[in-house]
């Protein structure tokens, strides 16, 4: 009963459509944020000499941590806004995995709920293991 019900409301194809839309929204949002930051960046710093990218120097911590990026965004720092666009972009496929977890759950497909959960755990492990607290 429940299975039929969930299938009717959210069939496989509908879920694929929702996930497809979600991916597009994520990419578009990320591009718009990066573009806004980029335009501000060029207006404010456009005439300055470009940074030395030929040598790797550790990025200032405010661009490598979400809290730093967000506080930079509030003070209208152009590089932080661009980096927020990057963060939204990276979050897009991760959100997609979240949605799949939900959708396999609706389909009562226990095996794929577990498989999706494993994928999500690996990504979260990767995210938190690199963090310097």
């Amino acid at each position, binding site marked *: 009963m429940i299975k039929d019900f969930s299938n009717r409301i959210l069939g496989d194809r509908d879920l694929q459509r929702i996930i497809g839309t979600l*991916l597009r929204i994520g990419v578009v949002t990320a591009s718009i944020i990066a*573009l806004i930051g980029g335009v501000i960046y060029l207006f404010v710093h456009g005439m300055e*000499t*470009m940074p030395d990218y030929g040598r790797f120097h550790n990025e200032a911590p405010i661009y490598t941590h979400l809290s730093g990026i967000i506080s930079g965004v509030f003070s209208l720092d152009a*590089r932080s806004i661009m980096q927020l666009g990057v963060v939204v972009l990276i979050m897009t496929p991760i959100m997609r995995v979240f949605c799949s977890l939900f959708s396999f759950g609706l389909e009562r497909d226990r095996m794929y709920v577990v498989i999706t959960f494993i994928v999500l755990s690996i*990504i979260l*492990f990767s995210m938190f293991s690199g963090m310097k607290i």
Partner: protein
Amino acid sequence: MSILAFTLILLLGAFLAGLAGSLTGLGGGVVVIPLLTLCFNIDIRYAIGAALVASIATSSGSASAYVKEGITNMRLGMFLEIATTVGAVIGAAIAIYMPTNVIAVIFGMVLIFSAAMTLRKKYDHSVVKGSMTAEKLKLNGSYPTKDGQVEYELTNIMGGFSIMSLAGVLSGLLGIGSGALKVLAMDSVMRVPFKVSTTTSNFMIGVTAAASAVVYLQRGYIDPGIAFPVIIGVLVGATTGAKLLQRMNVKVLRIIFSIAITIVALNMMYNGFNHKF
């Protein structure tokens, strides 16, 4: 050079990289690395960071269309993502200890392999008898064609799974989607129909790249001043490429690009051997 000039030139370069990546089927990120290192003399670590975000952008952008059409095999993608994400985390960990010159040489080899892969024959594998594992994991599926829904069955799942782990390691180490290796695993080993394997591989690239991007972001590989023009340029380039593909036969163009990319790859390897990275 001023920041404005640098950004505009990089925007144009990234556009061409996205165009080339989409016309050859190599993906948007791959061409970004030689563009940044060879043409702009940017440190390969920044190049890897920028390529990763470019891969996520093009993968998510084009996957959204294929997923809607119902060609992508979501279960197959999710199952294999276990292999690619574990690989990506390992690859990103190895990257700390690996000299950048070695990374450049490996990158060149992967690029040549990928260019060669785009020129091979494409099969639909419609009469394959599926294996027990494929049945158990519910990996057999169907996809829409002009003549209606076509069913397919898969085989040698564990073989495909191991190649996927390697694809994940390379993608974490080099910052690329390694789509060619993903397609090889699905197409040649598991006998996934060509259309399903390319779209499913594309679908997986975003998740694989995100698994190592979260590490690289914290390591400072992703510089917003480089990432911004690269994301925008590659996205517009890849979209233009996809539109061109629908309208014209790009066989000749594809061969020209594949040769050009092979030369670029040899250049990367040469510089790597001579410790120029």
